[in-house]
């Protein structure tokens, strides 16, 4: 019997090694797997490359992971926030590497990794600083830039409901990066508000099929 449900956050995060590339879902706080990030801080892996749209807010979650000195490099599209002081300080001090990527390239690079695409040409960023040094090609009179996929060792995502096969549904705009990050990581770990019995999720509306998910852990409702 296949059962991807983990009994604890610690069990869910087992094996995340120093130097790993870890995708973290969420757009701002919507869909951010806050409990998994806190558990990752406790777990202790360091020298991480983190892939997230933003660079943390306030002093919690991703900001706390960076403040703890665990993040070597961040791949993101929008680091600057009103309360991104942790990242801002590390960046200005040269203590964290930033790979800034247009948001659509970030999404498509993640999707490409999940779909086995070796690279793709996009119009986004052509002629800008963010395409400097990259291969370009003219296709049917339009200019394109070659972008590469982003693979991850692990993805930490937040979903609404999951079952023991790893099928997931999300809630509202918290879906954001979850489905594509789940495809791009060797090991996807989903925190869910509710684990449901197999068969309860309507196959017509499952957003992430279990093939993309290796571990599921339920977070106590009170902390949602």
């Amino acid at each position, binding site marked *: 019997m296949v059962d991807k449900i983990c009994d604890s956050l610690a069990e869910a995060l087992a094996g995340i090694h120093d130097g790993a590339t870890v995708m973290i879902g969420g*757009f*701002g*706080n*919507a*869909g951010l797997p806050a409990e998994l990030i806190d558990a990752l801080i406790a777990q202790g892996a360091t020298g991480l490359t983190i892939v997230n749209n933003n660079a943390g807010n306030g002093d919690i979650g991703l900001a706390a992971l960076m403040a703890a000195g665990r993040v070597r490099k961040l791949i993101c*599209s*929008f*680091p*600057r926030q009103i309360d*991104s002081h942790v*990242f*801002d300080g590390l*960046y*200005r001090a040269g203590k964290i590497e*930033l790979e*800034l*990527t*247009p*948001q*659509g*390239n970030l*999404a*498509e690079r*993640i*999707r490409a990794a999940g779909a086995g695409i070796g690279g793709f040409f*996009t*119009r*986004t*960023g*052509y*002629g*800008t*600083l*963010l395409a400097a040094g990259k291969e370009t090609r003219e296709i049917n009179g339009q200019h394109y830039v070659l972008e590469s996929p982003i693979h991850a060792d692990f993805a930490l995502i937040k979903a609404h409901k999951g079952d023991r096969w790893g099928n997931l549904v*999300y*809630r*509202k*705009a*918290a*879906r*954001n*990066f*979850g*489905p*594509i990050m789940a495809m791009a990581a060797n090991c996807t770990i989903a925190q869910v508000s509710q684990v449901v019995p197999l068969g309860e999720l309507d196959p017509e509306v499952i*957003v992430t099929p279990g093939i993309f998910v290796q571990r599921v852990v339920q977070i106590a409702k009170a902390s949602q």
Partner: protein
Amino acid sequence: MKRFTRDEIAQRVARDIPEGAYVNLGIGLPTLVANHLDPARDIFLHSENGLLGMGPAPAPGEEDEDLINAGKQPVTLLTGGAYFHHGDSFAMMRGGHLDICVLGAFQVAQNGDLANWHTGAPDAIPAVGGAMDLAVGARSVFVMMEHQTKTGESKIVEQCTYPLTGIGCVSRIYTDLAVIDVTPQGLRVREMAEGLSLDALQTLTGVALLPI
């Protein structure tokens, strides 16, 4: 001369958005446009984080942390709206499916080049988000901005001095002084603030303008 207020600029942009349009409003000034769209007309607002049919802010106490806009403020979803993931959301933006996007800007060049993501200052934290995707992907790119900087320099320029967001991508510019189309012949004035002459507008603008 009476400059257009921010709300009047927003109102002016809203008037150019036809029923049935799929529209993305950038963060900052462009979000004001939503307040001036006629709710009786079906206009589909897209939010890059994964919403189509985005509605107004919720009533106090009705906020949902899972339902936010691109500026990370709480919003609602209209009846008939949809949620989707980031891959699909950016396919809508990059694949030419949006009719209009409205963006803020630091500078627009006479050929439609747009600079709106980075001042290039050495200590600035660069952040781009979806601006470059919208710039190349939306069928029409409307820019909404103050005509001049705080120190009185024209933000409409011969060539952008700030780092570019996209090349030749802007279709129309809405400022507190005028509405200006970017055309193959150059910048053509469509409308001006009350009491402003073309000559006066020309003096305040960095590049040659074609008359209405």
